[in-house]
């Protein structure tokens, strides 16, 4: 009697489970901007292709083997007083057969695996758009990402802009511990080491903003070491580069090149509108409150950057390494209560800033486009 209940019991909970799962996932889930299953770049597409093949094969194997198991469980259920079943000890033929079958299945997986290993390992020499790949240096920091474009002479952080259809050649290094660069819709992970350069590449096939993350445990705030990949049309990428080159003519504290400390006071005095004076006050606070000892506001490359580069911070999508929307409110919260918002980040100096000061700083930062 108990045995007869087994089949129903095997399925009932699973049926219930499936319904529940569907309800929950449909109810609370999606869209999935960080999905590996929706590749938007060539590297990720190659990976997806070999993964999909593997999943198909695995599904077939799964159905056959679990099916055989379940069938045996139902078919051979016995009663305590049944006669002793036929005592079989094994069969060499059967053993050979079921050694060869998985070997063949694995060979079918192995061939595209090795092919894809080699095709993803090589950085293409030309992009689909005919240009040479765009070199980007990625630097991992606890806990943010710095991106440098050595050919363009600009630096930014937590937002990687790339043009569509141009292969990106990433050369990556860490400033401290091991991190891992992962932007799932475009490429697999690549660890980022402090003592050697690792390489990764991809070509974006669609424009838009796509989240990425650090995928190697790197300390307290590993969970919030995200970034955004901004795939631009060729024109908007040109505009982005132009804006960055423009602000790289600023000094790294936001003053015009060659400015003296007196320049800030001059600019403040010269401001005519209220908004202008607010911005000017923010600009002088940015230096006076020691923001510049860690942050550079210019996209000019600064070797000693401790905190993220803030070039174009006014129009960035996110703050705090890719996870807080860049609203005035979040920005204020960040400046005033950094250690509550993101415990353990290096920005932990007790900075006595008044609400008004922060308002001025925000106004100033918003001018950074």
């Amino acid at each position, binding site marked *: 009697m108990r045995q007869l209940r087994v089949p129903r019991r095997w399925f009932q909970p699973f049926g219930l489970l499936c319904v529940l799962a569907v309800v929950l996932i449909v109810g609370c889930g999606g869209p999935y901007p960080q999905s590996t299953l929706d590749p938007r770049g060539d590297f990720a597409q190659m990976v997806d292709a070999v993964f999909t093949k593997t999943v198909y094969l695995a599904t077939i194997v799964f159905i056959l083997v679990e099916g055989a198991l379940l069938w045996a469980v139902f078919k051979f259920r016995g009663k305590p007083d049944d006669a002793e079943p036929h005592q079989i000890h094994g069969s060499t033929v059967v053993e050979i057969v079921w050694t060869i079958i998985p070997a063949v299945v694995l060979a079918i997986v192995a061939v595209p695996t090795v092919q894809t290993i080699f095709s993803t390992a090589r950085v293409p020499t030309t992009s689909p758009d005919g240009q040479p790949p765009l070199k980007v240096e990625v630097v991992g920091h606890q806990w943010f990402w710095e991106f440098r474009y050595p050919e363009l002479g600009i630096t930014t952080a937590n937002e990687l802009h790339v043009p569509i259809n141009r292969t990106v050649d990433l050369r990556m290094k860490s400033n401290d511990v091991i991190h891992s660069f992962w932007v799932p819709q475009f490429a697999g992970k690549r660890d980022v080491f402090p003592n050697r350069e*690792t390489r990764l590449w991809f070509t974006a096939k669609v424009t838009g903003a796509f989240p990425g993350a650090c995928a190697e445990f790197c300390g307290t705030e590993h969970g919030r070491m995200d970034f955004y990949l901004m795939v631009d049309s060729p024109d908007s990428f040109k505009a982005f580069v132009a804006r960055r080159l423009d602000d790289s003519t600023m000094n790294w504290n936001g003053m015009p090149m060659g400015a003296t400390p007196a320049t800030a006071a001059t600019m403040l005095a010269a401001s005519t509108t209220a908004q202008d004076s607010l911005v000017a006050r923010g600009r002088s606070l940015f230096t006076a409150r020691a923001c510049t000892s860690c942050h550079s506001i210019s996209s000019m490359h600064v070797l000693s950057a401790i905190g993220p580069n803030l070039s174009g911070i006014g129009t960035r999508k996110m703050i705090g390494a890719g996870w807080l929307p860049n609203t005035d409110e979040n920005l204020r919260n960040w400046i005033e209560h950094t250690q509550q918002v993101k415990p353990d980040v290096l920005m932990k100096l007790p900075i006595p800033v008044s609400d008004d000061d922060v308002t001025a700083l925000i106004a100033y930062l918003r001018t950074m486009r």
Partner: protein
Amino acid sequence: MATTVLEPAHATTARRSVLVEWLTTVDHKRVGILYGASAFLFFLMGGLEAEIIRLQLMKPDNHLVTPEFYNQLFTMHGTTMIFLAVMPISAMFFNFFVPLLIGARDVAFPRLNAMSLWVFILGGLFINFSFLLNAAPNGGWFGYAPLSSRQYSPGINMDFWMLGLQILGIASLAAGVNFFTTILNMRAKGMTLMRMPMFVWSVLVTQVLVLLAFPVITVALILLMADRIFGTSFFQLKAAGDPMLWQHLFWVFGHPEVYILILPAFGIVSEILPVFSRKPLFGYSAMVFSMAFIAFLGFGVWSHHMFATGMGPLADSFFSLATMLIAIPTGVKIFNWIGTIWGGSLQFKTPLYFALGFIAMFIMGGLSGVMHAVAPADLQQTDSYFVVAHFHYVLFGGSIFALTAGAYYWWPKMFGRMLDEGLGKLHFWLMLIGFNVTFFPMHFSGLLGMPRRIYTYPAGLGLGGLNLLSTIGALILAAGFLVFIYNIIRTWRSEEQAPADPWGGATLEWSIPSPPQEWNFAVEPEVHEKDALWAMKRAAGVRTLPEPPRVSGQGIHLPSPSWWPLSTAIGLLVFMIGILVRGPVSHAFPFGLISAAGFAIAAFSIFKWSYEPPDHHTSHIAH
């Protein structure tokens, strides 16, 4: 006559307190029970950590715990479940059942065995003590350099981890020598290697892995200790130390460790399936060779944990293909298990439920393992929740299901009581459902972009639903284990004695009373073929042998109880504490003295131990 002479002598020993008896025990069965009891408590601790992790991840942007505490939780969850739960619960079965299965009266070195036990318990308490100082290890169970260096982990947290693992490694190595010797040398007359029960084979192969893999992590931890305590730079960048060396050393140990966790499970299931199918294990020799082959290959695939480090296409291809190769012997084992139940007469008792659950879940873990072996695909899956799903399917769906099966199967032999069947089946269904609700969605949360070891995730990633599902599953799992605990308590209170052979067993442990007497076998058995007890029953023409009598055991030599294993373990612990406190407060106080004292205690104990006579005669009184 002899009886009366011996009685007073025994009476004095009987007056020793129960506590002293357990602290000085060298009886492999008591050592086994102590292993099991302490490991189960550590398992509950690790489970509690997992539940807090799941509650934190229940919804996006949650703030139940701080990021720092979260990191401590997942580091300790991994460390606990591997080193303080699955390994020692397996060790419980090694201890209690290897001698019984091979027809021996004890292990080869009973006092060494007791030392392994105490070193393990003290090591486990040492690591967990860190929670009380709010300084639990927080650098991951894999302790990657340079994050684990003093520079990036200045606290005492990772000192607890590295010294604790060092202590536990000593316990494992000592047990490895002991069981390797026991199995090779203490088998009953006629029990050739190819007549050994499959569980014994699995223990033998596991011990080979322990003996060859643990020295490597020992060296890695020594180098880390030198870095953290004495200021060398093995994994530090400032003097061109290479963090990759840590990764290689760690995974040369770490991958065999995976098989150290799963092979005993294979063995347990290979014992249970034949008994409840009433049919011998299908393809015995194929099972032995596939296990040996898995162990051998297990040493050649470590770098598949490091595909994302960019080792280059040749290395990637090699480790990719080597890893796939492991799927072949593993597949052979699964097919043989199905072959075993095929044509059998399945008796649906709780152990069989769990054993079948093991096969069903392990198949899934194996298949996702092959997906990881595809190196390019692994670049997407590694360090995401997909790999979390994968290894829980092999370590929970695999090891824990099989260990639970073993617990229900061998409980009557260990304690002389039957666990309740109804509660057992309820436990099974809660565990099967809870397990799948927890971990199956993780395949998807991983593929949909959720990295591992993150303490929270933004709502915008769309992962809230899957994570909520996993959390619900984790609570169902917890309910399952509460049922198990209730079952244990209920069984404890019941008076009903389990028979010697409740399941129609095939192996020697079922030929002696439940629980076994101190000397196991009144008459040392002789074995003529595999499944020795079935052969005896067949020879006698019965399905169940008559209940064996409990005998006096007079004149049997047994190892004497000893304090020295415990005091050696204490010495080792004190030695490590000395190193621990030296790290953060060096030179403030001659903390080297603590280590010196620990060393002296251990050395003195070992010296006394080696001159202590090893055995005594039992009296007539049965315990």
